[in-house]
């Protein structure tokens, strides 16, 4: 399944080879830890075990910044 996400202002597509995808899977696929990142699904915070589908509007927020 393909999931389109928004990350740091840019759109990006994640490819998964399974059908049930959770917010935690998205973080994992992006190499981010829930320690400093979270997923927003249709404007609400999605918990790690929450499922997401291609129809959802997904945004990934990484709180780490440098500089």
């Amino acid at each position, binding site marked *: 399944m393909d999931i389109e996400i928004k990350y740091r202002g840019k759109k990006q597509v994640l490819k998964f080879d399974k059908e049930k995808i959770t917010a935690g899977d998205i973080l994992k696929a992006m190499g981010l830890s829930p320690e400093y990142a*979270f997923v927003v699904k249709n404007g609400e915070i999605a*918990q790690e075990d929450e499922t997401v589908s291609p129809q959802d509007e997904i945004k990934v927020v990484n709180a780490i*910044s*440098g500089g």
Partner: protein
Amino acid sequence: MAKLKKGTRCSICKAKGEKEKAVVFLPHHRLALCRKHFVSWFEKRVEKTVKEFRMFSKKDRILVAVSGGKDSLSLWNALVNLGYQADGFYIDLGIDQYSQDSKQLALSFSEKIDRSLHIVSLKEELAPIPVIDTVSNRPACSACGTVKRYYMNRYAKELGYNIIATGHNLDDEVAVLFGNTLHWDVNYLKRQYPVLEEEDGFVRKVKPLCKITEKESALYAFFNGIEYIEYECPFSEGASSIEYKELLSRLEEKHPGTKLQFYTNFLKNMYPILKEHEKKEKPKKCIICGEPTYADICSVCKMRERLKKAV
């Protein structure tokens, strides 16, 4: 951050007999919170930090260093909500699209909360960061930090503010502390306190978010609908602080509370020892611009000389 189990209720709502679902879990504080109670928890924590370190009071005039990022905007929002007199200060660093976008976000936010935002253009004052970078032999971020501190201090005095507040969060402080400890950089360690007192031309500087994690700050911005710059400054790539942050977050995942303890125990146990051995050197006045410095000529005036030679 460990997982929030499905259907967990907000700890505070539960105590009040309400049923709101928790959306945030803070393992190091053993709290699961709903949106509303997370926001009030955050603001209370900021206020407690302000009082613990005697940073400022409601009578002080505070200038918040605003970058357009989540931390500075969250800080500004929280201070205003807590009833402090806080205005914003934005330095346009002249870093292409990044500066344009972050300035726009800072401006829209200041309009939204109806507080003034003072804007200074580095291009007019000195030169944009990409130009400074070509004549400087230090990393861009180090030169950038110097000019930001300089103009912040200078304009705070000119505009009549007696406090400068910056959005440094717990993760920033812990990453710096970790780096300074790794290098046993005692001169930096003894200055790593959330309050730098005012003295001889330096305005008092404070870090009210020093006990707020980066994620908490991003969540607070999210819950308040604060729009902030989401991409990084092009110069920040490969900063060692990001590596430290990722490393420390792995420790934190296994042992919640590690970061906070590393930082607060430093302040409690190590900082006083370092402070005792400090040989107090008094700042002088820069012979060119009059700003405080420990040399004859301050680093920004030196930069200006170098820029002149380069063209």
